[in-house]
């Protein structure tokens, strides 16, 4: 019975207080969360790319990747207001309490990426799951080769963490390319879709590893270009998004082919999902 009680307890959300809320436009907020019981924090040790189930009591749970650095005490989740649970989160602020359970899923291959060039390709809100990974690498800058960050948004207002991109741009041996599909007059970066930014980076296929996150249509196109330029499928890592309810591979919602995105993913090498990725209706 003890094992059963333990496995039941692992699925219980822990209350955490919102200690900071930063908004990027009306529909995108970053929440920093601090556990009411600090003793549970070690259970939430994570690697960049993993996610928590964020819980609103009485309302529901949503899977949200952790966008803070693993070494920070507080956890940050960048949340887009898109559904019935996030709409309630939208109305919460500093001092309010959310529940967290996790961390779940796979993480970016930051160890494997050491001594390699890292190409980060993101679109839309896709930067949130990879922000922590980028910060992680810069904090250990000597361990990584050239870092190129290509990020595309539809509208300038979709650009969260603009200050991050500006800070990264000043890092040694680093390229940051930003582009918007539908720019406004104040937009001072490139215009177009993110795959057009590939023209601006040199890729040495033998020593490049790719972290990718964003809309499927972007990822399909980007994978195509990268493979044409010789990057092997085993070194293109994609963060996937699917409907998740349990987050532990039991409820069945998040499947892509044989993968449970919640526990096998959300980050998977393209080589593993090539057969299924981009197939309509899968």
């Amino acid at each position, binding site marked *: 019975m003890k094992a059963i009680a333990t496995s039941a307890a692992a699925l219980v959300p822990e209350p955490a207080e919102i200690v900071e809320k930063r908004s990027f436009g009306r529909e995108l907020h970053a929440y920093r969360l601090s556990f009411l019981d600090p003793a549970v924090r070690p259970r939430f040790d994570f690697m960049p790319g993993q996610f928590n189930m964020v819980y*609103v009591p*009485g*309302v*529901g749970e949503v899977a949200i990747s952790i966008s803070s650095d693993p070494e920070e005490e507080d956890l940050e989740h960048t949340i887009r207001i898109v559904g*019935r*649970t996030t*709409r*309630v989160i*939208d*109305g919460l602020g500093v001092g309010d309490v959310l529940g967290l359970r996790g961390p779940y899923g796979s993480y970016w291959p930051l160890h494997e990426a050491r001594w390699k060039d890292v190409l980060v390709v993101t679109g839309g809100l896709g930067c949130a799951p990879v922000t922590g990974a980028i910060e992680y690498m810069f904090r250990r800058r000597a361990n990584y080769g050239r870092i190129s960050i290509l990020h595309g948004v539809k509208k300038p207002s979709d650009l969260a963490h603009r200050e991050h991109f500006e800070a990264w741009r000043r890092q040694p041996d680093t390229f940051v390319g930003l582009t918007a599909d539908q720019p406004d007059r104040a937009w001072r970066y490139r215009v177009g879709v993110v795959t057009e930014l590939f023209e601006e980076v040199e890729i040495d296929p033998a020593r490049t590893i790719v972290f990718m996150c964003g809309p499927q249509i972007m990822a399909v196109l980007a994978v195509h270009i990268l493979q044409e330029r010789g990057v092997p499928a085993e070194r293109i890592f994609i963060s996937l998004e699917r409907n998740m309810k349990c987050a532990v591979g039991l409820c069945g919602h998040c499947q892509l082919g044989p993968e449970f995105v919640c526990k096998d993913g959300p980050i998977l090498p393209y080589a593993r999902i090539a057969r299924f990725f981009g197939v309509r209706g899968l």
Partner: protein
Amino acid sequence: MSARVRAARPRLGVFKFASCDGCQLQLLNLEDELLALADRVEIAHFLEASSRVEPGPYDVALVEGSITTSRDVERIREVRDQSAFLIAIGACATAGGIQHLRNVADVEAWKSEIYPHPEWLDTLATSTPISDHIPVDHEIHGCPVNKREVLRVMLRALLGAGPDPPRASVCMECKRSGHVCVIVAGGQACMGPVTRAGCGALCPSLGRGCYACFGPYEGANGPALAGRLEGLGLPRRDLARRFRGITGSHPAFRSTAEGLEDGDG
């Protein structure tokens, strides 16, 4: 809806258009819960329950019934203007109800057949759902609605959360409850496989075929079910009537009915 509905004690208005009052009765049938609910919600306008009427605005409005007169058309706009979150409840309000059958009949002809003074009647040629006239924030389906679902929607609203209605087919509820399929084992015409869940598979639980009062579920495959039920020996004309019933104005059901009627010669 969050900020508006999360007022300390939200004000509720219940309004009736062309209908039988059965959905409002479902609210009153929440006997064990109604008092507790009234603690959390100020029932400001609910003529079926009380003649005491408070003026708007209302945080939540429940609207029963379909639009069948020109006065209805004006009145529903007034209700909309007074209501922050407006929910259409029941098949009349969401699909025009059984009275939508007038939409495929000659209203002028039957008026004079039924009434001695048809000229005294002020009625539109159609019975239409609320959403044909004003923006609706949510719909609760059924004839009548399931009182549990109305309560679920209210309790969610009180937390500032939107509804999460059942969207599967009736078969899901039927099988979860362990009922034996009345089509496969009973040879009955059951509309469950094309109908939206929410009733708890009430009719199949009593050994009767579902008659689709909750309307089509998303992606309902009417023609495939019609073909199967035809195989049970049901004449196409009778089958068409099953799709023409209470929620027959929904495109998925209407087109199936039309297909069956066309093929009936």
